[in-house]
């Protein structure tokens, strides 16, 4: 195996270790500490959570490396951080400070409206958002070693994450049931390389771990995404925009572990205080999921 292939395999394997877990957005070392105590399997360090980015408007960028370092020192779990779509220098900076995973994210303002980062040229792993199978496989072809649904970040509205997960699953099922000779046309329609299409056809799943993200606000939301086939969950604004972040975070973690146990999820959903204020998709001017296809 070449060194680059071996590194890619190790990066996919780190995502495997995160499965069944909850990755939480944090903006300070204190929040990172609360997240780890609550059972987060990783934290996403960013300057402002998506709900605030949405409220503030303007251009949103990679976070201050000093802030990220502070978070790296505060916890023992993996630390992820976001860079703008196509901004490979932000990605280089994050690699230089030894981030554990880079999220090339539609939550930040895109830096390039045509090209994504060539993630194959990095040693650190990347996670990318996708709203259908074509997007997911294109990101994987560019070198992403983990995929998440885009959902609609900062809304507390689960509808788009559900839509993206269902779409991806139904497209995977469709590929799985195709004849071998139909796969060439499928690759053309999906605008992805044939070998990735063949992998999905043979294995009935993406070649990398697939998490849910964008709009998860309650333990039931998280369990819903797990029952729909997510292998873990990102929670952004849902935790630190709610009334009792520590309790809500811990409840979401337990709901992800026991996502089919309705009785337990009922207990976990009780007395959580106020959930984040949700915005419906019809009420928002900016659809982040439309960034980067």
């Amino acid at each position, binding site marked *: 195996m070449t060194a680059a292939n071996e590194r890619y395999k190790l990066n996919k394997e780190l995502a495997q270790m995160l499965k069944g877990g909850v990755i939480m957005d944090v903006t300070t070392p204190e929040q990172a500490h609360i997240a780890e105590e609550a059972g987060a399997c990783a934290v996403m360090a960013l300057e402002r959570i998506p709900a605030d980015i949405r409220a503030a408007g303007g251009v949103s960028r990679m976070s201050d490396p000093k802030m990220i370092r502070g978070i790296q020192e505060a916890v023992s779990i993996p630390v992820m951080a976001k860079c703008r779509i196509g901004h490979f220098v932000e990605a280089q900076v994050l690699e230089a400070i030894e981030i554990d995973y880079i999220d090339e994210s539609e939550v930040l303002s895109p830096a390039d409206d045509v090209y994504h980062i060539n993630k194959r040229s990095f040693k650190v792993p990347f996670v990318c958002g996708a709203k259908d199978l074509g997007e997911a496989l294109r990101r994987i072809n560019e070198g992403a070693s983990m995929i998440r649904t885009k959902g609609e970040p900062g809304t507390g509205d689960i509808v788009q994450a559900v839509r993206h997960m269902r779409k991806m699953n139904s497209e995977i099922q469709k590929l799985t049931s195709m004849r071998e000779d139909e796969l060439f046309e499928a690759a053309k329609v999906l605008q992805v390389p044939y070998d990735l299409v063949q992998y999905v056809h043979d294995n009935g799943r993406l070649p990398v771990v697939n998490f849910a993200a964008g709009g998860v606000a309650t333990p039931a939301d998280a369990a819903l995404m797990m029952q729909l086939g997510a292998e873990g969950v990102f929670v952004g604004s849902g935790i630190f925009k709610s009334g009792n972040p520590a309790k809500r975070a811990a409840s979401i973690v337990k709901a992800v*572990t026991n996502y089919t146990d309705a009785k337990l999820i009922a207990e976990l959903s009780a007395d959580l205080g106020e959930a984040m204020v949700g915005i419906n998709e019809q009420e928002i001017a900016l659809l982040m999921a439309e960034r980067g296809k």
Partner: protein
Amino acid sequence: MKIGVLALQGAFAEHEKVLEQLGAECIELRQDRDLSEPYDALVLPGGESTVQGKLLKELGMFDTIKSQIQNGMPVLATCAGAILLAETIDGQIKGQPEQYFGTIPMCIRRNAYGRQLGSFHTEAQVAGIGTVPMTFIRAPYIASVGDGVEVLAVVEERIVGVKHKNQMAFSFHPELDPDVRIHKAFLKMI
């Protein structure tokens, strides 16, 4: 032969796949009531030890599993699982527990090879098995061992595999590579 696989978080499905390939039956342990099912041996998989350790306690599983281990049930622990078994954990961040099960007299160092850029793959000897592929993901290593702990594997002068009575612990992930000999050796302990 039934194996209880701790399925709170992490790479438990990978262990199940290998064990089922070897003819064992697996049950997933996700909460206290799962522990009343009969099983002959226990797997503590990789993942995040802070998450698993916390959920073990909060889902009411900790005491039962600890006494199963102390009463001699065979255990295979990898990466985070090895941290759960260690008597002492080095490099703790303030507020993290000093130990979890603490059933192997050894000191383990968490994230001992650094962050993800320090993750690596190699091959080395495991005592009684031979040369096996080893995948280390943000792995710990065992800084020191106490009485009665047999060292099974050493990579670059660091201990990465031990056996203590009924427990085998590795800081790498045998479940991620196609070589199944470590899982075979584990099943032989039953």
